[in-house]
């Protein structure tokens, strides 16, 4: 597969140059995936398919256009390339668009363990059986639990990137996931002043999933079922908290969400467009001195690892924030040209964004708070990277005297990125490996809660 794609990339580059393009870059991808959903010991859906795409950028005289197609045949691509090149003179001249500096391109020399050697060894029937058992296990935890969905998916993907600089590389990756989503009726405790009487059908749902390049690294059936069950049941009887200002512990998943937004504000594309509250902060202290944030592309087996970025720039670790000081933005070739810097190998975004773990267990983070919030869910688009404002719908568990107490929902949390970054005073030690954002939970000293 990779060989075939490398050949197509070569042919497309040659053809484009022959037709008059000065710079060409080509990306091809193919993924074969299998998805299965089970509910009430019944297969709800079984989906199997392969999909692919080619993406070509053509440039001449500092003008560029892109084309993409899911049909790789040269007889389809040839007229598309020709008409795209014909239309190029109509574009504006953009001196900042260039291919990467060839000296920065290349493949990092390391085995990143992209591919499970046993990937093809599990039959559909086994996957179905596993889900049936997983559902039974989850339902056996508590009689109040019902199934929303039990799911399995796996995929194998192939990617090739090449350009007219002469860069041409390919790789293949496997990925598999198991997920459990449960729900339970929530009679709820009638709270004063709220008109919950109309909401007689209230339920709570939650779940857990495991995701890994290697099937053997997926969490056990027992762990998945137990976590999904616990997370669903702990939401029952949730109440709306009073408006106040309190410390908040961001669970690992919420920490991922927060750091994901922060990473966007460090992307060169947002910086040169002035869409980032950090645009003028390079070299300044922007966070608590405890904070050390880096992008780590070369971690074997981790989901965001890569040998090179989407433009073929060789991947290297990059320190973003050290001792609270902002040291670098993440740049693609274009944003680097705009900001008069060098590409950091971030065409396509972060690889593995890593917050250096601290020494506290989640229990110790919670125990440090007399009255506050353990945040387990956020919703809505209330993140403004330009201004740094942060206001999100929230749910979680209230912390009373250092212990988790009643579940809370239907409120918002608000602050700003600068305040939050400076307020991260305690960092946990347990990292959630299921994401390209590798972070433990952390405590933020004060946030505004808007509730009843």
């Amino acid at each position: 597969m990779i060989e075939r794609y490398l050949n197509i990339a070569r042919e497309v580059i040659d053809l484009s140059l022959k037709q008059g393009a000065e710079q060409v870059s080509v990306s091809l991808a193919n993924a074969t995936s299998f998805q299965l959903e089970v509910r009430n010991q019944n297969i709800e859906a079984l989906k199997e398919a392969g999909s692919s795409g080619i993406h070509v950028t053509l440039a001449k005289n500092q003008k560029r256009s892109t084309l993409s197609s899911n049909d790789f045949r040269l007889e389809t691509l040839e007229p598309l390339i020709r008409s795209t090149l014909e239309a190029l003179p109509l574009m504006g001249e953009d001196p900042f668009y260039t291919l990467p500096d060839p000296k920065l391109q290349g493949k990092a020399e390391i085995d990143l363990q992209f591919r499970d050697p046993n990937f093809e060894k599990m039959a559909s029937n086994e996957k179905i059986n596993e889900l049936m058992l997983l559902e039974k296990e989850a339902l056996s935890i508590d009689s109040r639990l019902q199934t929303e969905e039990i799911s399995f998916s796996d995929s194998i993907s192939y990617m090739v990137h090449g350009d007219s600089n002469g860069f041409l590389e390919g790789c293949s990756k496997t990925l598999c996931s198991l997920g459990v989503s449960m729900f339970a009726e929530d009679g709820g405790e009638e709270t004063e002043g709220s008109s919950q009487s109309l909401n007689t059908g209230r339920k709570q749902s939650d779940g857990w999933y495991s995701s890994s390049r290697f099937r053997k690294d997926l969490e056990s059936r027992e762990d998945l079922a137990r976590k999904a069950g616990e997370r669903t049941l702990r939401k029952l009887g949730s109440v709306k908290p009073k408006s106040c200002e309190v410390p908040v512990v961001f669970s690992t998943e919420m920490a991922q969400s927060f750091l994901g937004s922060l990473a966007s504000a460090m992307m060169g594309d947002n910086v040169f467009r002035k869409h980032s509250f950090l645009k003028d902060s390079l070299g300044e202290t922007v966070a608590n001195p405890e904070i050390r944030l880096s992008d780590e592309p070369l971690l074997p087996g981790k989901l965001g690892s890569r040998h090179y970025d989407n433009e073929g720039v060789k991947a290297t670790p990059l320190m973003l924030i050290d001792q609270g000081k902002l040291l670098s933005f993440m740049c693609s070739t274009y944003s680097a040209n705009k900001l008069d810097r060098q590409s950091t190998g971030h065409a396509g975004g972060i690889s593995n964004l890593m917050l250096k773990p601290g020494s506290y267990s989640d229990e110790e983070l919670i125990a440090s708070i007399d009255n506050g919030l353990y945040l387990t869910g956020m919703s809505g688009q209330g993140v403004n990277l330009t201004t740094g404002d942060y206001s999100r719908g929230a749910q979680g568990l209230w912390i009373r005297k250092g212990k988790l107490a009643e579940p809370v929902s239907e409120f918002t949390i608000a602050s700003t990125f600068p305040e939050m970054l400076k307020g991260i005073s305690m960092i946990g030690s347990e990292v959630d490996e299921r994401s390209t954002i590798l972070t433990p939970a952390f405590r933020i000293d004060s946030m505004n809660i808007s509730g009843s």
Partner: protein
Amino acid sequence: MPNPELKMKQSSFLDQVNGSTEATVGKVFEQQMGIDERVLDRLLNRALDQGGDFADLFFEYSLRHSVVMEEGIIKNSAVAIISGLGVRVVEGDQTGYAYSEDLNYDAMLHAAGTASAIAHSGQVKINEARRFNQQNVKNHYPVLKTISDLELTSKIGSSEGVILRDTRPMFRFNVHSIAQEGDQIQNGTAGVGGRVGLDFLESTDHPIEVGSKSAQEAILLLGAKQAPSGPMPVLLGPAQSGILLHEAVGHPLEADFNRKGTSAYSGRMGEKVASELCTIYDAGTVDHDRGALNFDDEGSLTGENVLIERGTLRGYMHDRISADYYKLNPTGNGRRESYAHYPLPRMTTTYLANGDTDPEDIIRSVKKGVYCASFSGGQVDISNGDFVFVPTTAWLVEDGRFSHPIKNFTLIGNGPDAMSKISMVGNDFAISEGIWTCGKDGQSVPVGVGLPTVLISEMTVGGM
């Protein structure tokens, strides 16, 4: 603004899909690809040869153009061509699905075979030659000039012998602005669009209006103060505030959640779930709206469906599977993102019927509250009914008057609770500009919303 020469140049890609819907789809699939009734028949037979109640084939050929202008130059233009076939086999509430982007016969037959694996009991008798009925439907989005950022051409053939063809234009024009004053920077964004052609942009002042609106929003926000915090009356301006309906009642009334029992509205048909001032519809028949569909993505005709009538729950939005489960007719809400996805119950254009109060009187009635005019989006938790939506332009209202613009907040409420607190409904109903995209289970589809001015007597405002 894109220059006219560029438009003409790009339209050359579109020559192959110009013309009427029937002729267009016929040309792409039948003439160019050789997918005729015999092929449909064989593929359907293969899909059902393990059994199953129903099978359908969804062919798609789509062409998307986009042009980006930034810093005064046309920076990039992109064209994308996507084609493929999705094969679905349904048995009871089980779905087998496979797709192929390769539209040669063997690849399509392989996909049909893969989808058939779900079924194990033969309920459909395979005849040697299925007779197809070519169904013609009313076109809710005829287009004069077909250059747009998305051209979706679909054709559905089902085991029940129905063939439907559609050409679905989609156009979107967006402007993002930033305004700076001293250290302070604010964004503004505005857009228009719908199932329209380029004539839409040419025949009006839309580009200028959108540009001004986007710039004005950014400038307004430069002078905005922090929003208040806590429960208070919330005024929702016309059109865009329809997001409230989309999140608070729309998603929870999609029938798959109710079939599975996970929605806060499950099993509550005929019960009071909103204020008596609320009559809410979902309709795929709003001409040229972003949510419009002549028929849905499994071939059911769209219509104007009542969801809530004077506060009482009257209906869910169905796809075939949920309609079969509830023994009802499909409502035309079975939608999919593309051939690579199976249909799910989804909204089309969701709106609240007009009331009879002058919007000025509604604003005057509020002692202290917030007025929201435009939004960046929303989200809902189906099971407990909690939803958020995020205003971009809003004002504090004091003693019945706009006091000053406010920023940086989220509104949070609970579906049935918020809907019961709708205490006034204006007579200024409007459908939002066609800018909304709805995500569910990893599938994105274009949708519309509409609403007159509404007062919610109390809702939590999440400011600082």
